[in-house]
Structures are given as structure tokens and as C-alpha cells.
């Protein structure tokens, strides 16, 4: 029998500290969904998604109820559509996006990822059609998320693609101006994109994955924050950062154990293999569910102050150490997220001016995943956006890690204004970009930044 204090602590973790499973994402291969016509292809895609994920939501709810640990988001990731839809025109690919949207609504999931392409080493005709389709696809759907992998440690950084994506992002934001450029919040550009990410907007189901799989993302900022607060309050001796790292590690272990238990139950009930646990601390705009709050507990009074990067490095590493032992298979992004709009404390720090894009960029060099959910003035030019993306992808390419950019140039808004996307997408002040328009010559060179020397590992 487990001891009374352990039972009471565990009850507190679940009841008061926002412990949940943040995302259960079903990966589905669509490679066998090609029909003779676009209508037939769309029909096959819909049928397969409904057949595989038809009971996903009900199963997650039943398991969540049985264990009293809620599964907050139920999602779908599919084979990159550039592979499924190769040969179709961009307007036909938009139809596929709409079929994905309808099928996702039909099974009751909130988001579907995989309107994606990998252009790290060059843009194929299919990739180009998908990039051309992005603005219309994201504006004409509610639930579809898109991603482009434009760089990797192995193949370098495709600047032709990045330069183009600067315009693509401007275009999708412009076409969704009435929603604050929200379409851009459903699109992310990657370096070293994993093929098993359960989190949006970067989820997709790579060609190396099984037919169908269940991947999960754990929760945890609340649990980690409360565990730190409790120990700092109750400890009879002064705690060093090594002690605090150990507390984070233990909290991450417990959170991950719960996530893995629930995820495997869902996978078993659906008779689908269990893939990976993504050990990312994923914040939400809710009070008490913030990465920024953890930074403050760990000793910076303003998020973005010197020390913030070191704290994020320690946090990210401790979460991995705790989670890796708790799970049989870790994957996805696995690191602390710092999405500004989606994290209340980060959004407040951006508003107060303590957290800048440059500091965020520095922090992303030691955590996952990148410049995430950052609202910038709609007037920023495409080349400046592309150059910002290039900086972030270069960090990932050189450091053998995943980095990404999800940036929203909010039409008609300037730095200091605010934008609200609602729900999990949150709200934020528009953050200023310094030196706008000063990177045009760099971006217009185009071509590729060659893969780094340490890509030559054979």
C-alpha cells in the first residue's frame, strides 16, 4: 500500500495543479488514399480518417473519466500532403485541405496536422504546389495546421524556400486580416522537423511511421511550478539550483508516468500501437499553467532578464531527464515550449517590454521549439520575416536540434497594439522587430546555406 502522504500529494497534483494529458494525437498514414480523381482522393481521405479516428474522442473521454485525468486535446496527424497529393494543382490541394477539415470536424477533433512538405534540400513540383496552396488552404479551413521543413543539419538551409515563405506568411495573414492574421498561427516553418510530433501546428505523420499510431503530449507547467513552490516554502535548508533541477526532474517523472499510462490505455482500447510521449512542457493561457511562471520562481523577476536563458536550459534538461526514465519511448519535440501568445506570463512580459524577440531567440537555442506564436506588426516586410526565420532555423541546423518559427504579422497593427486569437491560441501584445528592412540583400541572394561540417558523419 502506498503511503498516505504520497497519496495526498498525488491527489493534490491532479486536483489542484492542472495535471492532464495535453494532447493525444492519432497519426494516420494517407499514402493509400490516392484516387483517380481529386474528388475520389478526398473521399478516400475522409473515409480513412473517419474509420481510424471515429472513436478517438469517445475513447479518450472514457479513459480520462476512468482515471480522472482528462485528455484535453484530441488531434490527428496525417502523412504530409505534398506526398499524398503529388501531381495535383494547388487549387486541388486546397480541396484536400478542406476534406481534412471536414473529416476532422466529423470525428470531433479540434485540429489536424500534416498539410506539410519537406523542402530542406530543394522544392519539388509537389512541394511548390503545396506552398502555393497554403494561404487559401489555411484561410478556408478551421482545423487544418500546416508545416514546412526548410532546413536540417544533414542537408542545410534552403533559403530559396525561406525567402518564398516570408511572402506566404504575409499572404496568409493578410487574407485572414479580420481574425488578426490567424491563418499564420496555424503554420510553422521547421528545421529538423520530427515525424512524430503530437503538438500543433507541427504535427505530421512521417513516411517512416506505422499505418496508425497514438502519440501523446504531456502537460506539466502547473505541476512543476507548484512542486517548486512547495519545496521552496517547506525546505528547512537553503536550496541550490541543483536541488531545484532535481525537483523539476521528479515532477516531470510523475507527469510523464501519468501521460504514458493514459496514452497506452487509449492506444490499447483503440487497438492501435503506442508511439511516443513528447516530453514538452506545454503551457496554456490559463493562470497557473505557464512556463514564464516557472522562470520567475527560479529567480528572474522579469522574464527575459539576464539569467532567463540559463534557467530555460536547466528546466528543459531536467524535464528530459525525469521524463526519459518514465517513458518507454520518448520522441517528438521533447522540450519546454515558449509560445508567447499561449503563455500568459510570457505574453505579459512581452507587453511590459522585458521579453524581446532577440531574447526569445537566445532562449530557443537551449529549448524547444523556437520563435513560437509571436505577433509582430503587419507592416513588417516579407524579407525581414524570412531573415528572422533563417536565423532561427540556423540555430537548429548547427545545433542538431529542432527549431521552428510560428510568427503572425498582424495586419493593420503596430508594436504595442494587442491581438487576441482566443482559446488555446491566446492573446499577446504585438512585439516590435528591430532593424526592419535591413536584411533584404541577404534574403535575395537565395540559394542554400550549406549543411554544416558536422553533417559529414559517415
Amino acid at each position, binding site marked *: *500500500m*502506498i503511503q*498516505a*502522504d*504520497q*497519496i*495526498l500529494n*498525488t*491527489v493534490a*497534483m*491532479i*486536483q489542484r495543479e492542472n495535471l492532464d494529458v495535453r494532447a493525444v494525437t492519432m497519426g494516420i498514414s494517407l499514402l493509400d488514399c490516392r484516387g483517380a480523381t481529386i474528388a475520389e482522393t478526398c473521399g478516400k481521405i475522409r473515409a480513412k480518417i473517419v474509420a481510424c479516428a471515429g472513436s478517438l474522442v469517445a475513447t479518450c473521454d472514457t479513459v480520462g*473519466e*476512468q*482515471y*480522472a*485525468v482528462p485528455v484535453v486535446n484530441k488531434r490527428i496527424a496525417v502523412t504530409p500532403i505534398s506526398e499524398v497529393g503529388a501531381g495535383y494543382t494547388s487549387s486541388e490541394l486546397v480541396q484536400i485541405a478542406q476534406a481534412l477539415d471536414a473529416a476532422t470536424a466529423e470525428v470531433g477533433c479540434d485540429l489536424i496536422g500534416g498539410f506539410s512538405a519537406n523542402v530542406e534540400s530543394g522544392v519539388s513540383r509537389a512541394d511548390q504546389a503545396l506552398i502555393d496552396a497554403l494561404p487559401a488552404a489555411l484561410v478556408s479551413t478551421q482545423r487544418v495546421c500546416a508545416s514546412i521543413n526548410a532546413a536540417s543539419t544533414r542537408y542545410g538551409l534552403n533559403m530559396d524556400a525561406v525567402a518564398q515563405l516570408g511572402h506566404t506568411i504575409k499572404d496568409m495573414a493578410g487574407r485572414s486580416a479580420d481574425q488578426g492574421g490567424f491563418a499564420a498561427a496555424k503554420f510553422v516553418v521547421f528545421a529538423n522537423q520530427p515525424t512524430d510530433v503530437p503538438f500543433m501546428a507541427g504535427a505530421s505523420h512521417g513516411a517512416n511511421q506505422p499505418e496508425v499510431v497514438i502519440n501523446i503530449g504531456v502537460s506539466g507547467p502547473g505541476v512543476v511550478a507548484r512542486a517548486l513552490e512547495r519545496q521552496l516554502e517547506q525546505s528547512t535548508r537553503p536550496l541550490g539550483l541543483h536541488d531545484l533541477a532535481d525537483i523539476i526532474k521528479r515532477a516531470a*517523472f*510523475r507527469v510523464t*508516468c*501519468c501521460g*504514458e*499510462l493514459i496514452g497506452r490505455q487509449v492506444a490499447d482500447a483503440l487497438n492501435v500501437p503506442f508511439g511516443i510521449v513528447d516530453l514538452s512542457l506545454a503551457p496554456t493561457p490559463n493562470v497557473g499553467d505557464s512556463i514564464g511562471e516557472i522562470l520567475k520562481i527560479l529567480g528572474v523577476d522579469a522574464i527575459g532578464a539576464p539569467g532567463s536563458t540559463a534557467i530555460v536550459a536547466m528546466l528543459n534538461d531536467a524535464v528530459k531527464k525525469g521524463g526519459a526514465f518514465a517513458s518507454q519511448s520518448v520522441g517528438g519535440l521533447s522540450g519546454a515550449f515558449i509560445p508567447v501568445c499561449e503563455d500568459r506570463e510570457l505574453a505579459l512580459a512581452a507587453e511590459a517590454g522585458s521579453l524581446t524577440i532577440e531574447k526569445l531567440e537566445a532562449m530557443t537555442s537551449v529549448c524547444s521549439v523556437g520563435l513560437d506564436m509571436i505577433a509582430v506588426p503587419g507592416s513588417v516586410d516579407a524579407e525581414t520575416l524570412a531573415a528572422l526565420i533563417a536565423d532561427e532555423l540556423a540555430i537548429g541546423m548547427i545545433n542538431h536540434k529542432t527549431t521552428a518559427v510560428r510568427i503572425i504579422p498582424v495586419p493593420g497593427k503596430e508594436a504595442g497594439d494587442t491581438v487576441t486569437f482566443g482559446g488555446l491560441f491566446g492573446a499577446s501584445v504585438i512585439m516590435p522587430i528591430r532593424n526592419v528592412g535591413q536584411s533584404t540583400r541577404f534574403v535575395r541572394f537565395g540559394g542554400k546555406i550549406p549543411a554544416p561540417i558536422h553533417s559529414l558523419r559517415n
Partner: protein
Amino acid sequence: MNDTSHHKQYVITILSRDRVGIIADVSGAISALEGDIADLRESVLRGYLTMILLVTFPVSQTAEAIRHSLQAINTQRADMPPLDVIVRPADDALPAGQSSIPDDAYILTATGSDRIGFVASVSGFCARHNINILDLSTAVSEGAYTMILLVDLSQRSDIADIRRQLQAFGQESGLSLVLQHYAIFKTTNEIGMI
């Protein structure tokens, strides 16, 4: 194992003030009577010790002789009251010890201010709703009184139904009730042996 035709099993309960050596004295007295301890549980609550034992004795030993021998244990000590001892022949029809926790065990915690009838009210709820209590303890934390029950819901089919009944019971009794699957506690608190 003892030959059943020449041996007889007894269930023994003992209540005593806790002290160093009490278990050694009890088990020593049982050995002296050629008793073989088959199973034993012991618990200490605020200075009082209680034990329940299943012991096999040669048929020549009577229940009265066993009780007499155990009661003599504290008589040499002026500072200790004598042991309270009950000895009964064991019923062979009962199942032989179930120590493992069933798959669908849950932990029910009930928290509220200390008052008369707290335990009766919660255990009464369990009895009315066909919830078998496997283990029970109480804890006082932050001024609140908490009952921790390990319960078996295998005789119930609908967990959602139980949660609704619990919620209603919580509202009428003013207790904070949480029902959580045992697997959650196990996975977050134990690194299991392989």
C-alpha cells in the same frame, strides 16, 4: 506445512501498548507452544499496537492455553497493562489470504473537518453503493481530516455513475471527495520491480 490431522489453525488478535520487544515476546510465546505463524499483520496507532495472526498449533494445544500464555507476556512489567488477547479457531472455508491489489482498485480520499460520524458516513456511502473497502487509513493535514480508502469497484460497472453518486454525496455531506484509479498512484510513486 504441518499435517492437518495433527494440527489446528487459530486466528489470534492482540491489543497492547506499543513497546520495544513486544513482537519478539509474542512470537517467542507462540514458538514455545510449537505454533507456526502462517500470516501476520501488525499496525501501530498513536502508541497502541494491534496484531492479527493466523497460527497453526498441534491439536494438543487449546485456545485457552494459547490465550493464557500470550496474556502472561506483560505481567512481569509494572509499567505495562496486560495484553488483550482473543483466540478463535480459524474457519477453513475462508479464502487463503489475498494480498495482491485487484486491477480495478481505486483510492478514495475524503477530506473535511474532524467530526463525529465522519468515518461512519463515508463507509456507509461505500456500503450503500456496493463498494468494498480493502484498506483504510486516516491522516490529518493542514487542519483537515482525511480518510484514505483503497476500494474495489469490481462489483460496479459504470465508473461515471459512481462519480455522480460521489458528487451528490460530497454536496450533502460537505466533504471533499476524490476517486482516483490506483494505477495512477502506483505509476507516480513506485518504481516497480521487474
